[in-house]
């Protein structure tokens, strides 16, 4: 019997290696796998490359992981936001590497990794600082830059429901980066609010099929701001 459900956050995070690239879902606080990030802090892996839309806020979660010196590099679209104090301090002191990627390119690079596309062309960022050093090519008279797939060793995602095959559904804008990151990682770990029996989820509604998910843990998260 296939059963991807594990009983604790610690079990879910087991085996994350030093030096791993960790994709972290969510946009704002919605769809953010808070419990898994806390679990990663406990788990101890260091020298991490973290991929997320933002660079953490306050001194909890991703910001705490950075403050503990466990993050070597962050790849994100929007590092500077209200409350990104830890990141800004580390960045000023040269203690963390930063790769800024336009948000759509960030999503597409991970989708590409999941879809077996090693690289693709996009018009986004052409002629800007973020296109520096990238191959450029014209198609039908317009310039595009070549962007490479971005693969994770681990993805931490947050979903609404799951079954034991690892199928996931999301709640409204909680979808965001989660399905894309789930595709792009070697090991995808999902924190979910509800475990359903196999067959309870509508086959038309599954937004991340279990093929992309290795471990599921139920966490009563309540509202996303909690």
């Amino acid at each position: 019997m296939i059963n991807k459900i594990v009983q604790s956050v610690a079990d879910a995070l087991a085996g994350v290696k030093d030096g791993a690239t960790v994709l972290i879902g969510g946009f704002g606080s919605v769809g953010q796998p808070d419990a898994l990030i806390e679990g990663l802090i406990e788990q101890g892996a260091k020298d991490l490359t973290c991929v997320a839309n933002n660079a953490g806020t306050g001194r909890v979660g991703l910001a705490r992981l950075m403050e503990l010196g466990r993050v070597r590099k962050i790849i994100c679209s929007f590092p500077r936001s209200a409350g990104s104090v830890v990141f800004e301090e580390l960045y000023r002191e040269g203690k963390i590497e930063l790769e800024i990627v336009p948000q759509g390119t960030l999503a597409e690079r991970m989708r590409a990794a999941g879809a077996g596309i090693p690289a693709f062309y996009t018009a986004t960022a052409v002629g800007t600082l973020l296109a520096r050093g990238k191959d450029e090519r014209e198609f039908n008279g317009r310039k595009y830059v070549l962007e490479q797939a971005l693969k994770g060793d681990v993805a931490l995602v947050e979903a609404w429901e799951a079954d034991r095959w690892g199928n996931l559904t999301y709640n409204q804008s909680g979808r965001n980066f989660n399905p894309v990151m789930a595709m792009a990682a070697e090991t995808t770990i999902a924190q979910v609010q509800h475990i359903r029996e196999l067959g309870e989820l509508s086959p038309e509604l599954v937004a991340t099929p279990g093929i992309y998910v290795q471990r599921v843990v139920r966490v009563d998260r309540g509202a996303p701001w909690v």
Partner: protein
Amino acid sequence: MQPYTRAEMAAKAAADIPEGWVVNLGIGIPTMIADHVPLEREVIFQSENGVLGMGPAPEKGREDPWLINAGKQMVTLRPGGSFCHHADSFSMIRGGHIDLCVLGGFEVAENGDLANWATSENDTAPAVGGAMDLGAGAKRLWVVMEHTTKDGRPKIVERCGYPLTALGNVSRVYTNLAVLDVVQGLGFVVRDIAPGLSLEELQAKSAAKLHTRA
């Protein structure tokens, strides 16, 4: 001279959006545009975090924390709205399916260039978000911003000094002093001036030549 308020700037842009357009609004004044489009005029607002068909802000007590826009504010979904993930959302944007994107700006140049994400090449961790995707991908790009910086420096320029967000794509600018079209091969063309402001005064607050309709 009566500069337009932020609400007036938003209302002016809103008035120019026809029914049926799919529109993405940037953070700040652009977000306010939605409040000035009546629900009966069906404009479909898209947010890059995977929300298509946003409605007005939720009533007090009916907020749903799982439903936010790209500015991380709680919003509503109107009937006909739908959700998707980030790659699908940016397919809409990059693929040219968004009729209009309205962004804030640091500078707009007469060739349609926009700078709105970083103030120098060595900026402390500049934050780009979805601006470059929207700038390159939307069918039309409008900018809503103050006409000058707080210390009076023009934001309407011949060439952008700040790092670029998008090249040559801005077609209209709404400021607190004027509404300008950006016409390829010509430059800024004045559509509208704030009450009591002369063209000469407006020109004096701009660092690029302002044209008037022939």
